[in-house]
């Protein structure tokens, strides 16, 4: 481990070389939009929202997985990045069947919030209206693939925190989908402990509690970092309550 110094949006900052650029940026008050990232889970760079421009490189780097290099000059919010972020949200919207107004996560949805923050006015690519399924075989929870953005937070929290590995990703490309067990109905998967962690970390209304009605699902995610920190460093520290909690 070494300390490196770099420039983020004109700000001279320093960080450990084993930290991610996202972590360093946030420590210095630079906000970068993310969707698949969740504090406490391994980063996979799946959603591409946190892409950064690095001077001297033609490649864009995902902040959640990229490590700092001494003297690096990073830009987090250039017009090009802003344009790409908006395009990503538009494509996520067009590839699902989100129907926000009648969704359990309406007004508490990370995708919806991101759409607002990137200035989305309308989706400029044609909506695909894919034929996706809903799995209501679990006694407590529902997986609605229509609202899934394939962030894989559910897969990671189930594997890394709960240790059950009930979820995984099946198929390829635009046909990719989250699968339970070896792609069987969720309710038939014996590894599922019904802990509900996947439901809590899902950024949209894809995973929700049975009986939830429109706009009724509010997700709480801070527990993940709290648990992971406790396990790794035997320190029960950090926030477990979130903004809005009583």
């Amino acid at each position, binding site marked *: 481990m070494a300390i490196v110094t770099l420039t983020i949006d004109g700000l001279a900052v320093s960080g450990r070389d084993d930290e991610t650029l996202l972590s360093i940026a946030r420590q210095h008050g630079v906000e970068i939009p993310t969707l698949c990232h969740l504090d406490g889970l391994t980063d996979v760079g799946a959603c591409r929202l946190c892409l950064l421009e690095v001077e001297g490189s033609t490649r864009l780097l995902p902040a959640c997985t990229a490590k700092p290099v001494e003297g690096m000059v990073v830009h987090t919010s250039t017009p090009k990045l802003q344009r790409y972020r908006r395009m990503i*949200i538009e494509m996520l*919207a067009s590839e699902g*069947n*989100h*129907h*926000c*107004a*009648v*969704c359990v996560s*309406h007004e508490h949805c990370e995708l*919806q*919030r991101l*759409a*607002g923050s990137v*200035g*989305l*006015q*309308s*989706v*400029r690519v*044609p*909506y695909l*209206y894919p*034929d996706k399924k809903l799995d209501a075989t679990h006694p407590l929870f529902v997986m609605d693939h229509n609202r899934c953005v394939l962030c894989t937070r559910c897969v990671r929290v189930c594997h890394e925190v709960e240790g059950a590995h009930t979820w995984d990703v099946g198929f390829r490309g635009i046909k990719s989908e989250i699968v339970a067990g070896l792609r069987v109905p969720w309710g038939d998967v014996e590894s599922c402990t019904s802990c509900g962690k996947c439901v809590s970390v899902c950024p949209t209304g894809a995973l929700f509690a049975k009986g939830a009605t429109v706009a009724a699902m509010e997700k709480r995610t801070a527990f993940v970092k709290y648990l992971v920190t406790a396990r790794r460093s035997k320190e029960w520290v950090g926030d477990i309550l979130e903004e809005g909690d009583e």
Partner: protein
Amino acid sequence: MTAIDPAPVTRRPRVATAWLGGCSGCHMSFLDMDERLIELAGKIDLVYSPIADVKVFPADVDVTLVEGAVTNDENEHAARTIRRNSRFVVSFGDCATAGNVTAMRNRFTREELLQLAYVDLARGEIPTIPNDTTLAKLLVRARPLHEFVPVDAFLHGCPPSADEIWLAVSALVEGRKLELPAAYQRYG
């Protein structure tokens, strides 16, 4: 949002509202502007609307608010007429903007949909799929307005709130740039 050219000073702005494939909820929200409607009525000529008995969409309209997705051939025809005759077209609410509830039928074929609605779920009478030639024909899929014609601005919400509509409409009829507060810059 695109800026609108200032409305001609020689006459009152000609405003229209249209109702395509939607539930009329956006228009209900429009009416929820309450006493502000009186103020608005003093500033504009409402030349076409479901709440005004006008049969044909007129020419030379300054601002048109369009509620609903484009779900049948009549909607598509109307969308093109509206675009041709309006200087500024606003997608009014989530169905016009994103398809929304109207587009939830897209997972079914038209045949399945009609069978479900008029036969399988029919109660009482002898189930029949209406096939009168005067009825509008469903498009294969319900789609947002901007997939058919260029749209100048989008009002989100199901429905957009009366306050949001008031802000947007008063800006547009006064020829001001349409800039909504951050709270309204949301999707769906």
